[in-house]
């Protein structure tokens, strides 16, 4: 009889330890952080890399006859990532972080830039136009309305970046409009630089700064999902801020 009682107790223990093996019920979900990462790394950060490429390429055009001086300039920007064989009069590419910049085929002013970062894991490269405003200031735009993935998302970017400061590129204006339409769930995210304090250290010797060190990006999400918040950048972290408070995130 005692054996049966022991066995029944053992089986009951096994049965009770079954049930829930995993649950993420207690995990803290933060869709704002997910959206910030998605929008920032896919559509905002490429603007900074384009500004660096454009700043180098524009200065390079003035000295391109002097190969040695040109290569020194390239190394001062891109360090060990620079490969001299990839530097031509009409075209320059540097990977993995920046991409390709070239003179427009039509012979017009400015440059065409294709950042190394593809759009959201789709291996779709986005083509940006760079207009030189003078005094190392660049207007960066793109419109993807004729992209192959226009069926479910589109992107429009307009930014003006001033690279004349010795320490950091200063964003004078930044407007990113991202639209998606998944099974008629339409969402528009508009990301703008709030004020003129958004600045990102320029790449130097191949070292890049992924995030701004000062300034605020404002996120306005409308459609199926509605949300509004700011991302306030500091030197070592950033804060996601709304009317109810803020949450700090390490960079």
């Amino acid at each position, binding site marked *: 009889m005692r*054996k049966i009682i*022991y*066995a029944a107790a*053992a*089986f009951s223990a*096994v*049965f009770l*330890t*079954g*049930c*829930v*093996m*995993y*649950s*993420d*019920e207690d*995990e803290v*979900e*933060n*869709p704002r952080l*997910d*959206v910030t990462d*998605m929008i920032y790394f896919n559509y905002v950060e490429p603007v900074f890399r384009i500004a660096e490429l454009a700043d180098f390429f524009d200065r390079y055009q003035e000295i391109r006859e002097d190969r040695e001086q040109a290569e020194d300039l390239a190394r001062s920007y891109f360090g060990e990532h620079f490969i001299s064989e990839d530097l031509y009069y009409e075209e320059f590419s540097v990977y993995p972080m920046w991409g390709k910049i070239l003179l427009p085929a039509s012979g017009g002013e400015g440059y065409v830039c294709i950042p190394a970062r593809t759009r*959201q*894991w789709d291996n779709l490269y986005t083509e940006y136009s760079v207009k030189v405003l003078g005094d190392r200031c660049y207007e960066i735009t793109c419109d993807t309305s004729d992209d192959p993935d226009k069926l*479910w*998302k589109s992107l429009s970017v307009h930014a003006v970046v001033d690279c004349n400061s010795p320490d950091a590129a200063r964003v004078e204006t930044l407007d990113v409009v*991202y639209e*998606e339409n*998944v*099974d008629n*769930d339409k*969402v528009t*995210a508009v990301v703008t630089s709030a004020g003129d304090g958004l600045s990102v250290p320029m790449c130097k010797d191949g070292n890049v700064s992924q995030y701004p060190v000062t300034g605020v990006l404002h996120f306005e*999400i409308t*459609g*199926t*999902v509605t*949300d509004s918040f700011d991302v306030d950048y500091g030197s070592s972290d950033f804060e996601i801020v709304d009317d109810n408070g803020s949450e700090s995130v390490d960079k």
Partner: protein
Amino acid sequence: MRRFIPIIFFMMLSFPLFSRERKELPPYDLKKHEFAFSGAIYPGRYAFGYDFDFIVRRYDTYPYYYSIAGLYDDASTYNKEKVTNTWSLSYTYNFTRVFALSASVSYEGGWNEYYSRADNSKLSVTECHYITPMLTARFSWLNRNLVRMYSSVGVGMAVSLTDVHYTSTATGWKESPDTHISLQVTPVGISVGRNLFGFFELGVGTIYVGGCFGIGYRF
């Protein structure tokens, strides 16, 4: 070194003086038949990952999980994975005191449930259930009437009660239950008892991972 040799020689000669007479063990009582019922805490198929046959929620579809709407949707839910543990019934035929063959049937099931964070209501669920017939060879390396220790290895076929497999035929698609090869290795098992016995095994495989224990009857 040379002076130690006589001491060692003396000690070797003196061993028989202190050794006890070997106790005669009772003759081994070989029972040919065994029935057993067992349970394991960590099911094997769950441990190696269920292949849930259908999409449980919209977030898992492309391109929804790349979208802002999908990210907010994902954050608004949580999931729970539940299992039944593994339960087995077996019959064993002991050919000799060392070698035995077992035929067993095991069951395990699991559910993946999604809930709303807002009100904890269940939004969707997917489930897997497996029946696994298995043939196991068992080798006993310690045989006493009360305690036996053994190792075993088994091979079988897990049949899914929920997933289906499609094959193309001349008349169209044919639907059949999804099947998987099943293997179970038990390096160490111990059973205690005579006719009615309890046992505990440590093993790894698609029946269970970790420990398994049960009760049985041999005759």
